[in-house]
């Protein structure tokens, strides 16, 4: 059995992993089946009388200032936030792994050049970098959002992977594989990469949490997902003016952010323990 699949299975047996994955799975499922039973998030059932209604049986999470159903918008927002998070993290993890392995395995000038680049990049706050770039657009395309969040997210990962590769490179099984005449790409993809997966997975899950926060932050500042597309950060921005009178407008998207970030981290922790067959 593929060791990665086996690790995922083990992670699911872990209560933390089960809880985390269950939350994410339910959220993902909700976004798929939502159209069946939830009102259209753009629908304004009664523009005059239904704005900022408190939670009720009719509207479980209440309604917002434009009379839209908050539950619908939280669920639709999950679609956007999760998709952005997964794509951006996939991008940044791939870049981080690539750069980290190159630096750690080849060493010397390659290592110095790449790591100085990372040092420089890490000296600039990510949000600042993103604000700078995203301010160019009036209507920011979601693809650009994913691209830039991904491209600004790999620096720390590459350091982690590099450190891990430096350690693994000295392991005797790598030397044994070299003595066996294993080609370089096999050493990289069978010995270095799989044994560096633990920190990579941790980085990925923490990354999912991070990206959800970054995207929410950007959307809250009006530089992320653009209205009328619902996003958790954007909803909190909209809720700002009615925070005291209709707090459900901010509480529910806030809880969604919190829950998703915690769930991703719990699953990542369980997965990390499972990837290491020695059982950390």
């Amino acid at each position, binding site marked *: 059995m593929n060791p990665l699949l086996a690790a995922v299975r083990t992670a699911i047996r872990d209560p933390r992993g089960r809880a985390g994955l269950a939350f994410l799975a339910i959220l993902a499922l909700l976004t798929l089946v939502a159209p069946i039973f939830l009102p259209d998030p753009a629908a304004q059932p009664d523009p005059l009388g239904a704005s900022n209604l408190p939670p009720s049986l009719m509207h479980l999470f209440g309604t917002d200032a434009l009379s839209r159903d908050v539950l619908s918008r939280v669920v639709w927002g999950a679609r956007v936030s999760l998709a952005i998070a997964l794509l951006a993290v996939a991008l940044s993890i791939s870049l981080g792994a690539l750069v980290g392995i190159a630096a750690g395995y080849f060493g010397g000038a390659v290592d110095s050049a790449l790591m100085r680049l990372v040092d420089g990049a890490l000296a600039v706050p990510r949000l600042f970098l993103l604000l700078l770039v995203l301010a160019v657009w009036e209507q920011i395309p979601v693809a650009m959002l994913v691209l830039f969040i991904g491209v600004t997210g790999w620096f720390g990962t590459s350091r982690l992977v590099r450190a891990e590769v430096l350690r693994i490179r000295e392991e005797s099984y790598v*030397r044994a594989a070299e003595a066996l005449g294993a080609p370089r790409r096999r050493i990289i993809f069978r010995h270095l990469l799989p044994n560096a997966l633990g920190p990579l997975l941790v980085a990925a899950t923490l990354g999912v949490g991070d990206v959800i926060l970054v995207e929410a932050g950007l959307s809250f500042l009006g530089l992320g997902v653009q209205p009328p597309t619902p996003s958790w950060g954007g909803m909190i921005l909209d809720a700002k003016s009615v925070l005291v009178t209709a707090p459900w407008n901010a509480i529910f998207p806030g809880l969604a952010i919190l829950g998703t970030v915690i769930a991703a981290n719990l699953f990542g922790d369980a997965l990390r323990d499972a990837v290491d067959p020695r059982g950390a």
Partner: protein
Amino acid sequence: MSRVLEVENLRVSFPAEGGHRVHAVDGVSFTLDRGEMLALVGESGCGKSLTSLALLRLVPGPGRIDPGGAIRLGDIDVLHLEGEPLRRIRGKRIGMIFQDPMTSLNPVFTVGDQISEGVRAHLPVSKREARDRALHLLQEVGIPDPVARLDAYPHQLSGGMRQRVMIAIALSAEPEILVADEPTTALDVTVQAQILEVLDRLRASHGMAVLLITHDLGIVAGRADRVAVMYAGQIVEEAPTPALFARPSHPYTQGLFASVPRLHGPVERLKPIGGSVPPPSAWPSGCRFRPRCPKAFDKCGAMPPLLPLEPAHRMRCWLAETERS
């Protein structure tokens, strides 16, 4: 007897303070015939492991093999190979077993995967065939229930079983030479004997030449055909095993024998060799054993060459001139 390996004047150096290089392996020469077992014996730090790594050009940086020597496999000189041709030598012509079976297997892949890796690195076989071959190899190294073990992960096996797996991996491409670097050091004594037996059996059945690196004279007796004793980066005595055990001649070899307890004969105190092996940066001029040698005399200020005592018994000591039979 056909010669499978010829090492000539092998030198491995590391950069030292002051811009010059120290030679951790300094002019080692030996040969290995088909089916022969040569034991390379010495204390830690004498350069024996480095010698074995150099055979496959795996000297860890910043060390390097100095020009001027040769490692000949038939008409190929390993020192002149790079890239793909070098890769094809590793595992295919020379297989290698490392000291610590606990860390020499990749923890995230099954035993079967890792043996297949060696097979597929050198032979054009399908995954299915590689797996069959892995199964066959596990049988050959004496692993019970090999079918189940194919899908076991390294952490599920004992040290002895892992070392057997390491041997199976080293054998995967049927090398003509097997280099075993302290293959039993990390194992229990009972398991040691089993592993050495496996090596003996494979040598007999495949005609494989074995270079056994060890610090333990006990496992050399009755197994190796010849013994080369190393001290401070050089071979100091070389002889057929019976001759060496009957008449250890170099003062260092004599010191080694005197520091091993004997089961027969009168009870004597062990006589350890005074001092310890100096690091390469502190090797004396002339004979390197001189500062610790009870028999040192004037002439030892000059480095002795390997001098013959008998046709096949040579030592790096001026005393050979007077002791020659």
